[in-house]
């Protein structure tokens, strides 16, 4: 897949405080990329540079294979964390204005705006002012505004905030649809459960630096191979004091093991099967949240 966005050794300071430091990452077409991290990690600063709102102090950013330029930015859509719409203007006026500004003709902006409003189930609210809409509805309009010009590169900062479960599910479907169309989506969030379900790749940032990044499955595998759950029938002492086991927690017929680095789970399975009846043997992947807490906590310690 072609690379859509590429950051190389990007650095940004504000008043002597380093917001982003030596950050490199890349996102490909047809991928949902999770930009994760605690509050104040530098996510918003990174996003702002990606879509040309601010410029990095050093390092380079390439969009669609070329250095950032206003023209190529027309192919980017942005959903900010805090909602930005004109409260006194109607849904139609907002979408028309933002669509035109993003390079659409007036007629096309109106057509696309109407289509998205229907898609979001807001057609009855098309001529209503934003301030008359509920928070969730405003969020949907914001969503439509970010996508109205059919951008190839979509950046969403905390897109699920303010949405009810049904709305969140609708949004998830749309994101997957956009991904299937080959668009690149950056999801910035600190909601790890959402990222886990949607993202193909992630970059975990903390203190302006990337701590963990890459394919989500691979990252999980790296972390997950050293944790095993076993359901069995046999002696309570199964695997106790085994040289490959770093930690052991027994709960009757349920056993949780943390393996030492380099330990082979297959060998362990064979040994266990030899002395007990195994009904379940599972290599546990840690949740993204666990990795997050582990890495960020370790860094802060």
């Amino acid at each position, binding site marked *: 897949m072609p690379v859509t966005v590429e950051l190389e050794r990007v650095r940004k300071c504000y008043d002597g405080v380093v917001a982003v430091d030596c950050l490199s990452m890349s996102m490909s077409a047809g991928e949902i990329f999770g930009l994760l991290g605690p509050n104040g990690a530098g996510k918003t600063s990174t996003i702002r540079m990606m*879509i040309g*709102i601010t410029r990095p102090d050093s390092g380079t950013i390439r969009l669609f294979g070329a250095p950032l330029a206003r*023209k190529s930015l*027309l192919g980017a859509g*942005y959903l900010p964390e805090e909602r930005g*719409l004109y409260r006194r*203007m109607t849904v139609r006026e907002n979408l028309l204005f933002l669509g035109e*500004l993003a*390079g659409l003709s007036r007629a096309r902006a109106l057509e696309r705006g109407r289509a998205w409003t229907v898609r979001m189930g807001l057609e009855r609210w098309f001529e209503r002012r934003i301030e008359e809409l509920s928070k969730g509805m405003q969020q949907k309009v914001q969503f439509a505004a970010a996508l109205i010009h059919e951008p190839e590169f979509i950046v969403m900062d905390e897109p699920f905030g303010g949405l009810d479960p049904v709305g969140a599910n609708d949004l998830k479907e749309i994101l997957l649809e956009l991904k299937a169309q080959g668009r690149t989506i950056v999801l910035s969030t600190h909601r790890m459960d959402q990222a886990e379900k949607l993202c193909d790749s992630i970059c975990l940032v903390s203190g302006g630096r990337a701590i963990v990044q890459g394919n989500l499955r691979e990252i999980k595998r790296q972390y997950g191979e050293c944790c095993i759950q076993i359901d069995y029938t046999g002696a309570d002492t199964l695997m106790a004091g085994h040289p490959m086991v770093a930690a052991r927690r027994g709960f009757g017929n349920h056993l949780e093991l943390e393996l030492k680095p380099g330990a082979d789970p297959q060998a362990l399975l064979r040994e266990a099967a030899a002395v007990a009846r195994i009904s379940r043997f599972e290599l546990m992947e840690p949740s993204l949240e666990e990795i997050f807490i582990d890495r960020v906590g370790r860094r802060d310690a």
Partner: protein
Amino acid sequence: MLEWQGARRIGIITRREYLQRVRTRSFILSTILLPLIFASLAWLPAIVSEQIAAELGAGPHKTMRLAIVASETGLAAAVEAELKRRDPGAFTATLENNPSAQLRADLDRKIRARTLDGYLWLESGGSGVRSAIFARRASAGVAAARQLEAAVWFASTERKLAPLGIGLDEARRLIAPISFTTADVIAPSTLPIGEVALAMVAVLTRRMFVSLLSYGVMVMRAVLDEKSSRITEVLMCSTSAGELMTGKVLGIGAIGLTQVTVWFSIAAVVVAANPATHAAASSFNAGAGAIAWFIVFYLLGYLLYSSIHAAVGASFNSTDEAQQWTFMIMLPLLATTLMIEPALIAPNSALVVAGSIFPLSAPVLMYARLLVARPPIWQIGLSLIVLIATVWAALSISARIYRVGVLMYGKRPTLREVVRWLRYA
């Protein structure tokens, strides 16, 4: 191509700023209704005094019923003839040649009963009229009294000249008033202006001041609104800070121009319709010149003040935070208002001249001087050059502050921080 795209985006932003404001009820109210109310207020005194005059029976279009009392034979008739010669329709006179206390009491009663508007009581001495009393109902018109005085003087003088063998026509020729006018060899630097005209100039000048202040503040509010609603971030994804600020300043500037145009049109109609103000307007540099200069100085002054306001708006998070700074911006304008009065009375005094060149007060003071005086060309030129240079500097500095400021949330920045923003990429 890209340049054109930028201009297109500025156009879209300008149009939104303009249309969103033009459609509001408050804009329509303040633009059309308010001046109409003021205009009708200006008419009110004229209408009222006409009503009073009509009530008193001596309105400008009514014939005055007059009695002329003189014991001297032929005098009353001569005065009547003279009045008729001056304005045949103005008076109808009944002549009396037997003055007595009884007659006078009778006439007074008739005035009270409103069957008579006034009478002339002429007393003659050795050589013609010695004294004349014009008895009338209160405030029956100054114009009538003046007419009567002139007529009595003429009639009396003619009668004095007659024994010397000077005929009526000859006498009139002799005592005809002299046409006396002044001519200036060196063109005066101040225009001869009456009180009404001065009041009108003061209104125009104050309008300039209010426009500069209110539209500047409007720009600041607009920037703060967008910043606090976080829409700036969305906009900056598809447009640059420079385009955003330009569109905003242009859109609100166009609002101001619209409002001023409507006001001027209403004012022109009102002024033209009222003979007193119409005459006054032609005594100073009114008309196309006054409007053209207003637009020139309004635009330059607006660009200056709105760009400063935009920078202040971008630097802070709320109107409250920005208050201290808006007051600082207002100070030079407030100081300027104190100089409007002196500028109209002594437009060429040193302080006023200096103020009309100093860029922060030039839009108001140079405009005031252009209305009431003929400032030297070099002063007008210098004022414009300094102003344009300042506008350019203010726009480029403000654009830099704006670019950084609109994305800065959280704590209120110090002046030193704002200065540091100027250096950001």
